[in-house]
């Protein structure tokens, strides 16, 4: 989709595209290979999360550069940690672009949202399970510009340095809309989304407690 509006990034052949997809998938599964993700319920929960946010992204395509994934990646990174944040970012990029349009930009979007998730994990915007909205707003603005910059790097190699700078400058209104969109999503759905993930965690803890209790009794 990104290629449709201005300068195109490098065109991918089928083999290169396949290699990138395999690498991204491998990265996602490696990130998911943590002990608690071996439980079927957690895996199902994670798949639901990825599917719903991907669907939301696809539905919101008509709204220019309003990206629900950015805030989701930020909060998931903060709540569930960098590994699951990266896995989420990679899988959402791949899943949604499967419908919207695949290309070299998928790699850069995956990198961009993974970076957002890592920032989220280090941001301390979630303390004791509660989302600090004011802090989230600051990170939402920063992440909008950072993500767009990372994705813009996808055209390097096809344009001169001057053209790249002009391309970046032309993108500022879109960055601004991304930032304002992030603020809106965070303000309206941030707490709800954060609480939803916190509930999943609680369920895991409950489940773990039950299992531990059963093991102790036997």
């Amino acid at each position, binding site marked *: 989709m990104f290629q*449709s*509006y201005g300068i195109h990034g490098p065109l991918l052949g089928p083999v290169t595209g396949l290699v990138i997809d395999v690498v991204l998938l491998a990265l996602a599964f490696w990130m998911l290979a943590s002990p608690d993700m071996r439980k079927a319920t957690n895996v199902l929960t994670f798949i639901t999360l990825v599917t719903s946010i991907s669907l939301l992204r696809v539905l919101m395509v008509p709204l220019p*550069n309003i990206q629900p994934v950015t805030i989701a990646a930020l909060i998931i990174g903060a709540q569930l940690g960098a590994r699951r944040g990266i896995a989420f970012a990679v899988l959402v990029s791949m899943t949604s672009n499967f419908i919207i349009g695949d290309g070299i930009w998928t790699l850069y979007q995956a990198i961009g949202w993974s970076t957002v998730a890592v920032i989220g994990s280090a941001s301390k915007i979630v303390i004791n399970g509660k989302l600090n909205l004011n802090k989230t707003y600051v990170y939402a603005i920063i992440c909008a510009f950072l993500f767009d910059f990372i994705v813009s790097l996808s055209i390097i190699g096809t344009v001169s340095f001057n*053209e790249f700078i002009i391309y970046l400058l*032309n993108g500022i209104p879109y960055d601004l809309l991304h930032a304002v969109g992030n603020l809106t999503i965070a303000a309206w759905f941030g707490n709800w989304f954060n609480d939803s993930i916190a509930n999943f965690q609680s369920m895991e803890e409950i489940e773990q407690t039950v299992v531990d209790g059963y093991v102790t009794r036997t």
Partner: protein
Amino acid sequence: MRVKLLLLASLLVLLSPLSKADIGSEDNQEEFLFQWNKDFGEIYVSTKPITSSEAIYVRTSSSNIAKGIPSVYSISFDGSENWRVENANSTMSDMSPLVFVNSGFGECGNWPDMVLVGWSDGLFQALDAHNGGVIWQYNTEVFAWGITGSMLVESETVTIPTRGGLDRLCLNGDLQFSQSTGNGWRNGVTHVADSYWVGDEKGNLWSVTKDSSTSYLIGAGKLRHSPIALDNGDLFLHLQTSSGSTWYQFDTVNYTSTIIGNSGSGPGKPIVVNGYIITSDSQQITSINCSPLCTIVDFEEFQSNGEISEVFGNIMLPRNTVQGGYGHFELLDNGELYPLMMLTFDDDWYGTSGVESWSIDGQKYQLFVNDNANLKLYATGPADIPSIDKESSNWETMLAMLFALILISATSINLLRERFQSAFKFFILFSTILLYFTMGDVIQAWSEFVTDESPASDAWNDEWPDEWLGTQVVVFEFTNRSVVAGGLLDYTTVLDLTRAAAEEQGLPLEIIESGLGKYLVSVDDVAGEGWEYDVNGQPGTLSAEYKTIDSDSIVIWRQL
């Protein structure tokens, strides 16, 4: 209680313009009924039809003779053709308005009823209004094109803005004088303070007399209309610039110009209605009061780049977009503009031609024609064919305003209750929606601000005909062939130009709407891996819908 009062106040504010709209639409509109139409084929019409007491006269234009020969027609009021005069050499956008001259005599002799025609190949003809016969003709200079501007007919002379000068002829065809100016396009002439005034393509205003020709630089840009003479002897100018347009008031005594304000790109041809100057461009229609200093009175968002017409005391102008149609505005006594409605037709398309109107014995008539070259006559009174398709242009704006008002009210209420987080939620939602709806204009303005335009010469191909120099050219580069269309004029965005070029070459385009603007999917049913464009050799960095271009831009579409 405080909340209820606020809501009540909001509702009152909201309902007041609705009441006004209802009154306006009932009081000011009469029902015009379709009478007949005449389709000139795959050619276009860029200028307003004119009428005499005996006939309608209209000119067509074409840059591709295979699709039709540029012609002038005389048509009876019942729709039948009286005569036509063709000029197969005139293929560079004929947009010099026709002028009807009543028979008369003077110091330079006699002349019959005539239709004066300036052709884009430089030929100027005086045609017999009754049979189309050439009474006399005169050749003017040609550089890429010839006559495209508006002539000025005075008591017994006609002054013609030629490609690179000004020629005054007696109405019997005798040349009185000829002076050189800068090269012009669509640049009409005005007579003020013993001088003829005409603009050029470099932003100069020329003062021309029989013995001299002097230029005054107004600004970097293009003057593409007849200067408007003001009551105090000054001139009003609407200069097209690289980033939009600027209004000027020019003092013809001290030769100084004063900026009045800035507006959108692609200015139309301003007119005077009830003492107010009405201008148009890609952004808005504006009302300006110039007594004695020019000030902006009012404006309404509307895109029109051609002729503005006064129609039965109101203002009508063609919307120059793919949706087409005609904007209809009332000019109130205080100079404010009040939008009445959009007139839409089945054949709506781009258009720059004004609306001709007249009345006979209380019955009113209107003639509409756009780039589709389908002339339509509508009239008040009996007819059994469906009426003009009327469409309210306001309901979407009203709905958006209502929603905005609700969000602002919610923000205010929460602020009053000191619920700052909730207030922020409504405020940021309002900001997002506002930014979303203004995104197109923001992107366009920002792009023009940050992008350094390259000259068209960077992308010029020496194999192209010289006639295309200074015009807009579009190249479709398929993987196995190229299609080139040149000689196009006055398109303001890459998308508009692309559509015109594709139509001329018979290439179907598939264009889809998306969040980032319109997206060209395929050309001639070829999608490939996508299409990207360059403007004058510089890669396009935003949707073709938002990328503005100059009058001599070269756009290259490449299949990937």
